[in-house]
């Protein structure tokens, strides 16, 4: 069976788009498409109606070539009724299946035998990549690429010799993916507990109301509700909460605030609500303070609250939290802009998928409970997690990928990249 080639011309389509269409068309095996530059030679004209000032050109083509087939492409709906055999329309975003159907209809205009469509194959990608390689004369400059150990001529430096014995790293090390240093300040060092042992439970419980954590969370809420700047003085530290700007400022350094986190405040606090007109004066105060300490003393509000919660809890659990109630994670925390804690990505992925208790989460992921406790405390502090009132009625079958080995290797690779 011989199938005639269909000649296709483009109108209102630049070279870049043309190369993409060319790649698609060349990989359709059941009809041969030949692209032509001269519209007069084209049997089919593909017209991008969204191109600048295309209408006069298009109308002229319709007038001069009434026998040509036009395939109009636009992001707007087609308004032009036309001879169905001579005029086709594809709405953007164009789906390849729709495009292929139209090509099939068009090719049946020119070929008497019916066209049998062959299955799509991945040759498309290979062909296109080969074409790209041919056009490339030099590799892209990698001057802005982060250091990954590649030399500038594209070859890798000789890799360090690693021990030959392949050792499976326990899941605890998956947390190290985040390159967390001094994690004890954030997640403490408690061992796992038996939740039925009241003594052990007492040891891992803390009272945020007695610490600055609750005061700070309330100050953020009040600043937002009252649309002002809250000034909070706790012991020797003064903090300013500006919810409109999503900022927390302090005349104390972060190091000083960290040590306050574990100190009961004993109500040695003063609280003031200032109007937003106080802001310029606040900036003067902060500049004076910064000149003395030479340290940044303003932080994103969410990141600050997250950090305070971690420093205060240190892997313990707040009084009143039930370890038997499932936890609901309402949305993923913005982990790239928050203090990193080991296993946070895995914990978030699991809890976002379905509610589990904190102990179940630690068991399912094979990690220490303190990581889960720390994660929950921090998420709760920024309003992203809460306890579910209802006990989970049935077990949720969480997802498993069919070929986990390759995903594990990707994780390992990512770990090496950020080390």
């Amino acid at each position, binding site marked *: 069976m011989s199938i005639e080639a269909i000649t296709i011309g483009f109108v209102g389509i630049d070279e870049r788009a043309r190369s993409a269409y060319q790649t698609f068309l060349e990989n359709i095996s059941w009809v041969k498409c030949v692209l032509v530059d001269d519209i007069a030679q084209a049997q089919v004209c593909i017209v991008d109606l969204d191109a600048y000032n295309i209408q006069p050109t298009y109308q002229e083509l319709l007038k001069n070539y009434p026998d040509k087939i036009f395939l109009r492409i636009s992001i707007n709906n087609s308004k032009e009724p036309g001879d169905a055999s001579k005029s086709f329309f594809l709405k953007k975003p164009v789906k390849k299946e729709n495009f292929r159907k139209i090509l099939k209809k068009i090719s049946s205009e020119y070929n008497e035998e019916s066209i049998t469509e062959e299955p799509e194959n991945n040759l498309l990608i290979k062909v296109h990549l080969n074409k*790209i390689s041919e056009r490339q004369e030099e590799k892209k400059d990698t001057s*802005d690429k982060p250091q990954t150990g590649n030399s500038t001529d594209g070859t890798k430096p000789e890799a360090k010799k690693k021990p030959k014995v392949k050792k499976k790293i326990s899941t605890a090390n998956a947390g190290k993916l985040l390159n967390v240093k001094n994690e004890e300040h954030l997640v403490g060092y408690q061992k796992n507990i038996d939740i039925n042992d009241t003594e052990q439970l007492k040891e891992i419980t803390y009272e945020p109301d007695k610490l600055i954590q609750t005061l700070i969370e309330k100050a953020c809420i009040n600043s937002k509700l009252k649309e002002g700047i809250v000034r909070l003085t706790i012991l020797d530290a003064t903090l300013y909460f500006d919810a409109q700007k999503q900022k927390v400022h302090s005349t104390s350094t972060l190091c000083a605030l960290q040590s306050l986190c574990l100190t009961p405040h004993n109500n040695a606090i003063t609280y003031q609500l200032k109007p937003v007109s106080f802001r310029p004066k606040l900036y003067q105060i902060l500049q004076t303070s910064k000149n003395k300490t030479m340290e940044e003393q303003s932080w994103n509000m969410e990141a600050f609250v997250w950090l305070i919660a971690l420093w205060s809890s240190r892997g313990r659990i707040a009084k009143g939290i039930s370890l038997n109630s499932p936890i609901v994670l309402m949305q993923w925390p*913005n982990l*790239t802009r928050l203090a990193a804690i080991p296993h946070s990505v895995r914990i978030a992925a699991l809890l976002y998928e379905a509610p589990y208790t904190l102990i179940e989460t630690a068991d399912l992921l094979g990690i220490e409970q303190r990581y889960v406790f720390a994660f929950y405390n921090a998420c709760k502090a920024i309003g992203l997690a809460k306890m579910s009132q209802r006990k989970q009625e049935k077990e949720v079958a969480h997802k498993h*990928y069919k070929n986990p080995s390759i995903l594990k290797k990707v994780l390992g690779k990512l770990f090496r990249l950020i080390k």
Partner: protein
Amino acid sequence: MNDVKIIITGPVGSGKTAAIITLSDKDPVSTDQSATDMTKSMKSETTVAMDYGTMTLGGKERIHIYGTPGQERFDFMWDILSTNGLGLILLLDNRRKDPLKDMTFFINSFKDYIEQTAVVIGITQTDVNPLYKIDQYHRKLNDLGCKGAIFEVDARSINDMAHLTQALLFTIDPGLEFSE
């Protein structure tokens, strides 16, 4: 060969090319050419068809990373690219006029693919234009009936892109361990 692929998509200038450079081992195949239309006001080069990079995992296994062209006129390529993929990384440019509309467009365009796999979203340029907040993106994603991690990222930062990629992998399988 046990190869898999990840698709990185998003509008023009959202950082797809930079993200592939960040994640790839070798210099990726880049198809940037001078922009000739209104995208030139956004960037001087724009992707002709697609960017491509690889992450080698040891032996002959590789992750193929494909970046789709940003403009709608290339969107039939998206359909082709997403066959047999692991998941989708959607990068959104917070400087654009309506990035929430962009998100709607791309989530709807890849809806079938996302349902079979997973999506994570990286918001770039939040330091340049903090107008749109991450909560708004979460609400919009929820309205679209979709779930996924949303992080602020700098596409040139290996830490940010590694976090985002980890989020994709753990969304696919939260119980993943890792081996070296």
